[in-house]
């Protein structure tokens, strides 16, 4: 069953002077539980695609269906609630909030979820940090962590709300190979053990080959 379905998706960025076609007629089906890599040269539209799948951006035309829901029909509050419940994000530069400690950063999605009590939130955060081997860093600020630890915190934040989909934008791009491998191992675990659907943008051919499927992009078009 397709968990992500894009049909005839186009994305055009317009300024006063120029129009840039970031995505052109993208049709994409991703099945539930799949681990998909998106590859392509810089500027080919990979991140734009990930943003559209993650409902962080809207397509200029075409339809985006996530978990059988037509996202174009949703208003801002519905989109926020949908993202909160179903999608986790892992960014290349982690995007942890520097003023919050590890535990508070991880709790972020739960803060915006209705009906989660403080004690429940603490328990969920504790569980996910223990699973990712970060229990001893709970009170640390992001500035006190290594890059690999930061990315593990970001992954913990992405999955603490138990989303079905995890979107990772070059998750190992800022890490050395050893730490990068650690992060990839975690993502594979999340896919195999939890059955989460993972869509990952990467430049790393070796990492991409370890996923279920590779989708290649060039100049906004899906080429493979």
């Amino acid at each position, binding site marked *: 069953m397709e968990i992500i379905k894009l049909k005839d998706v186009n994305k055009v960025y317009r300024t006063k002077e120029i129009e840039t076609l970031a995505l052109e007629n993208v049709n994409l089906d991703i099945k539930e539980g799949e681990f998909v890599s998106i590859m392509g040269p810089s500027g080919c539209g990979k991140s734009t695609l990930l943003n559209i799948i993650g409902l962080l951006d809207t397509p200029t035309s075409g339809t985006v269906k996530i978990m059988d829901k037509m996202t174009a029909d949703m208003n801002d509050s519905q989109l926020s609630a949908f993202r*909160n419940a179903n999608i986790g994000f892992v960014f290349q530069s982690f*995007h942890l909030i520097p003023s919050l400690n590890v535990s508070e950063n991880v709790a972020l999605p739960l803060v915006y979820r209705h009906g989660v009590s403080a004690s429940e939130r603490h328990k969920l955060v504790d569980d996910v940090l223990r699973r990712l081997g970060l229990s001893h860093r709970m009170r640390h600020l992001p500035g006190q962590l290594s890059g690999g630890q930061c990315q593990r915190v970001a992954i913990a934040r992405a999955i603490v709300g138990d989303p079905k989909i995890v979107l990772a934008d070059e998750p190992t791009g800022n890490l050395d190979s050893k730490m990068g491998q650690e992060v990839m191992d975690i993502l594979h675990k999340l896919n195999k053990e939890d059955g989460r659907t993972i869509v990952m943008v990467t430049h790393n051919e070796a990492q991409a080959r370890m996923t279920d499927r590779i989708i290649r992009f060039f100049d906004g078009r899906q080429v493979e």
Partner: protein
Amino acid sequence: MNYIRQLFYDMRHQKMMTWVSIGGTAVSIFLVLVFFMYNSLPTVEVAPETHRQRIYGAMKLYVELTGEGKEGWNASGGLSYDAAQKLYGDLDGVEAISYVSSGSGSINVIVDGKPPVSSIAIGVDGNFWKIYNFNFITGRPFTEEECLNTTRPPIVLSEKMARHLFGIIDVVDREVNIGGRPYVVVGVVEDVNPILRNTWADVYMPLGEEWRKGWDNQPAYVFLGSLKVLLLYAEGTDPENIKAQVRSRYATLNSELEKLGGKTQYDNSPYDAETMGKNSWSKSPTVTNIAAKRWLVYALLLLLPAINLSSMMRGRLQHRISEIGVRRAYGARRRDIVGQLLGENFVVTIVGGCIGLILSYVFMLFFSSAFFSMVDRWSSLAAKMATPTFSMLFSWQAFAIALGACFVLNVLTASVPAWRASSLQPALAISKNKS
């Protein structure tokens, strides 16, 4: 709690902008509070003016001549005793009425052939002491009958003046000479703060016949004189009801004036304590809308800094755009973001507000004399010497005004930048800069 910690983190990392924001807020709140305190001084209830909310006054009369060849002739001044009685005597709902000199004046007081001592004097009748709660250190007030005693009229001195003239305060029955006439001291009162314009004086002289006369340069000016009227309304009296009575008295006075070749017009008197403090001789008898002007000043005092502070807020938010994007990605709605940013900014505003509050008290307590001389062009010597006490300035209204002003300033400065920041597409916001 997280929001507060985030705010302090943000403040630490953007020290310059934070201090300018706090400073701007402090200045704005300072100005609002100084303006509020300055305007509330005429109504603050401090001994001996403890019933200010119930004390109303009429200070002047306007007369226009109507006879042939007199077109354009008019005069404005205090009231004669006769006019004051006709217009304000025996009104329903008035507990007590007092006739006093329309202003204070400088006189020379001589004791035992010593050099004259310059002092501020006001002329008051016997009822003056019933309207105001003076604390007599020694002696007693004079009566209405004693006021008209022309041989050895009574006088009341302030504590400071008694000490200055005699070196002691127990000076009842001692004699002073003013303008070649002997006066006998019947009482000494506690000094009155010069901010209390109706009661501050060094010397309280009896309102003798010479104060009560009308002008004699034109027949129609006979109702003009040198008195003002102070009315203590009974509890629960509707001021409009009193005004209606006075309006009708004006009509009667006008029919008398008509025979003398003049006319007057009702000037909306009696005025409350605040309006009395604002009125001046130079203005026409119509009462300006003081409240509307005041709200305009409040609005300007808040709006002008708000424009600058709003730009500062926008600058501060630039550093947090990607954080806002991440929050949006993880489920924050626009209103969550706006709420967070408004809340954070409110803390900054409250910090600035507290500083402004403290500054305003310090200013009013220690530098107000210079301020009053500067802003109050029509003030008497009293206003120039006035220094309010802490008890005059301390009121819950001042705190409410400060808090309200902080809230308004917060909404004015933060709502637009916060809404704009929250309206960015999350993808764009995340890519703006790195957390």
